[in-house]
């Protein structure tokens, strides 16, 4: 089984460690298999080791321990320019002294391609990113979004099988960033290249990826498709980092068949899925998505029912965010659809709230 996995993996990190100063490990024991054609995102806060991992794959940093394989070959000792990996940098790194066309021609020229061949490919790449008439401009004469597209085109023009992207949309404004997310996603789908993408923006990761590796402290916390990552976080860090999350902490009372009882510090008992607890009597943090909490639950809909006091109502058009005081937690958030039923939500009022134990996950203490 393990053997076949290593054959399938196009990119493989095997027990990779990295330390800059010989004392602290920035990347601790990294293991990922990335199949051909996948869009994998490395997501995490700054300093979590995601960019370092990408730089090791690109060849700009050397792993202090472990091996990195590309298409079955160990590439630890292969120079960056021999790896044939396309890369898009944070600030695009377009060469300012060359025109757009010269920038695109650069990877082809260093590969000693013929002149006419280069011209065809450059034009095709420009058309792909819809910048056909911009070949003679210099990067400084382009807008941020256009520069971004040139950078993508340059990373693709020599037809690498693997593209690395290091926070490529970080410098763009919000609207443009969303538009570029779709463009990059579509290019990936059309060309079928393997993409390893680094970002600290979780919505970007959720939008674009096949799978997301959540990094923290140099360790992958969870590696899963976006929906699984959001709905089934396996530890408190992931639950907190991806999307909005209600945290309730208490101690584990009993556990049976994957369902457990947690006693909160205020005395209430909550039924939850036992995902990642340390044993009876130990601390645990409950994770609960705001949209899985119901106001005035119908009989039988929820197996956890409590009282909550409304502290604040924030109107957001299609829905309302209600901040409530529940079981001593003052920042318990409930998302309520903007329907006529709950017009009467008043600050200071009390309401019954409830959730299903299937939506509530008992995790490690945060």
């Amino acid at each position, binding site marked *: 089984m393990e053997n076949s996995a290593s054959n399938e993996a196009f990119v493989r990190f095997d027990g990779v460690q990295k330390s800059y100063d010989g004392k602290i490990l920035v990347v601790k024991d990294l293991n990922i298999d990335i199949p051909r054609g996948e869009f994998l995102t490395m997501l995490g806060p700054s300093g979590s080791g995601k960019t370092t991992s990408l730089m090791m794959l*690109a*060849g*700009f940093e050397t792993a202090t321990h472990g091996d990195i394989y590309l298409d079955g070959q160990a590439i630890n000792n292969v*120079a*960056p*320019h021999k*790896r*044939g*990996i*396309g*890369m898009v*940098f*944070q*600030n695009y*790194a*377009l*060469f*300012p*002294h060359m025109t757009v066309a010269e920038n695109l021609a*650069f*990877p082809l020229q*260093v*590969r000693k391609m013929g002149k006419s061949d280069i011209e065809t490919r450059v034009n095709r790449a420009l058309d792909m990113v819809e910048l056909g008439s911009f070949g003679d401009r*210099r*990067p*400084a004469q382009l807008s941020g979004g256009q520069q971004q597209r040139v950078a993508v085109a*340059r*990373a693709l023009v*020599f037809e690498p099988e693997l593209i*690395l992207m290091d926070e490529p949309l970080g410098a763009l404004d919000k609207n443009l960033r969303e538009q570029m997310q779709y463009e990059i996603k579509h290019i990936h789908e059309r060309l079928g290249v393997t993409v390893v993408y680094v970002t600290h923006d979780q919505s970007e990761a959720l939008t674009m990826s096949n799978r997301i590796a959540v990094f923290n402290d140099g360790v992958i916390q969870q590696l899963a498709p976006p929906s699984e990552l959001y709905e089934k976080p396996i530890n408190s860090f992931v639950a907190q980092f991806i999307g909005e999350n209600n945290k309730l902490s208490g101690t584990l009372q009993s556990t049976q068949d994957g369902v457990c009882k947690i006693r909160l510090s205020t005395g209430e008992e909550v039924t939850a899925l036992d995902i990642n607890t340390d044993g009876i009597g130990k601390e645990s943090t409950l994770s609960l998505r705001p949209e899985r909490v119901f106001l005035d639950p119908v009989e039988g809909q929820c197996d956890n029912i409590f009282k909550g006091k409304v502290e604040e109502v924030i109107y957001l058009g299609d829905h309302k965010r209600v901040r409530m005081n529940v079981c001593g937690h003052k920042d318990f958030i409930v998302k309520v659809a903007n329907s006529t039923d709950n017009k009467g939500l008043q600050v200071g009022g009390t309401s019954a709230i409830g959730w299903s134990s299937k939506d509530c996950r008992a995790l490690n203490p945060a």
Partner: protein
Amino acid sequence: MMANTVEAEGQLTPEEQKRLTADMHRSLRRKKIGALFLVAPLLIFIMVTFVAPIASMLYRSIDNPQVLEYMPNTSAALADWDGNELPDEATFAALVTDLAEGRKNYTIGKVATRLNYEKSQMRSLIMGTARKAGKLKPPYKDQVIKIKAGWSDIDNWKVIKRESKSLTASYYIAAFDMETTPDGEIKMLPEKERVYLAMLWRTIWMSVLITLLTLILGYPVSYLLASLPMGIANTLMILVLLPFWTSLLVRTSSWIALLQGQGVINDVLVWFGLVNDESRLSMIYNATGTVITMTHILLPFMILPLYSVMKTVPPSYMRAARSLGATPFTAFYRVYLPQSVPGVSAGAILVFILAIGYYITPALVGGQSGQFIGNMIAYHMQKSLNWGLAAALGVILLVFVMGLYALYSRFVGNNNQMSLR
């Protein structure tokens, strides 16, 4: 500016337009006057202490008052002289008057010196005659020729006539190793007497060599400084700047101690048996000494502009080039080098312009073969007191440097704007 006026209406009527333009000019004028007040003290200081003296110094290279001012009668008498035969008695009379007057006022020496620049022996001709001019009675012609036979030589009269104009090109002619024949023809001096052109040429090629050496030594250092973390780079920068804080004389003298025949380097070489005790290397008091010492002294002027430009080149450019398949050399040559060109040209022009005008260091360590044109200018300023020639040499140097700078700003200046974002 005036945001409310412009934004309130999409289209302005011609009248409003006019008023807006007037308002804008008024507000700008106030700003301009304010700016003028800010720079005024410096401007006045520079005009008084720098521009005016330099301008008057440069004027000396064409200024020619001596003959006209101190031999006014002779100058007037020679104005109509055709130059074919000896001047008439009236001219000789004027000469005697001028010489006697000049001797009495102690001004005749200046004329003698001035004329001696043009033709040797003019000094003794003038001074010798002037000494006796006061006692002469008319008719003068034969008596004067008797005192100094030189007065029968038409060529001497021609020189006096030529230099009795208030402006002269003769200093420039001398500075280009040329002379004016009595017939008014300008030709090159005999090979043996040429000095300045060879020295100018030597100044230029040695400055080019020094610039190249500082570039070769400075480029890798700047690259290292620009790519190191801030803390380490700052520490190393102190080492680069250390020579700046040491007196120029101290630095030059320490090179003498190192390079001289009985100096440290020769001693070490002899001690290791690499060089015979009898054939110690002569590395100082010649061109080699000038090049070594000046390369060291001017190195910071190359490193600083290089460093400041390289600091702005993000390391991601090199990484991008590598990831696109370029070897380290290609990535450097095609991506890094073009972006460091503004630093290279700024450093090179700075070092070259400083080098071409240097004179203390060549004077101390240059010996005979390592002298620069600056040393010649200093010599004429301080020793020979031929300020006109010194000024002419200075102007030639200045024009050369300004021409070079014009070329620089024309070719590199434009390029800068394109390559910088």
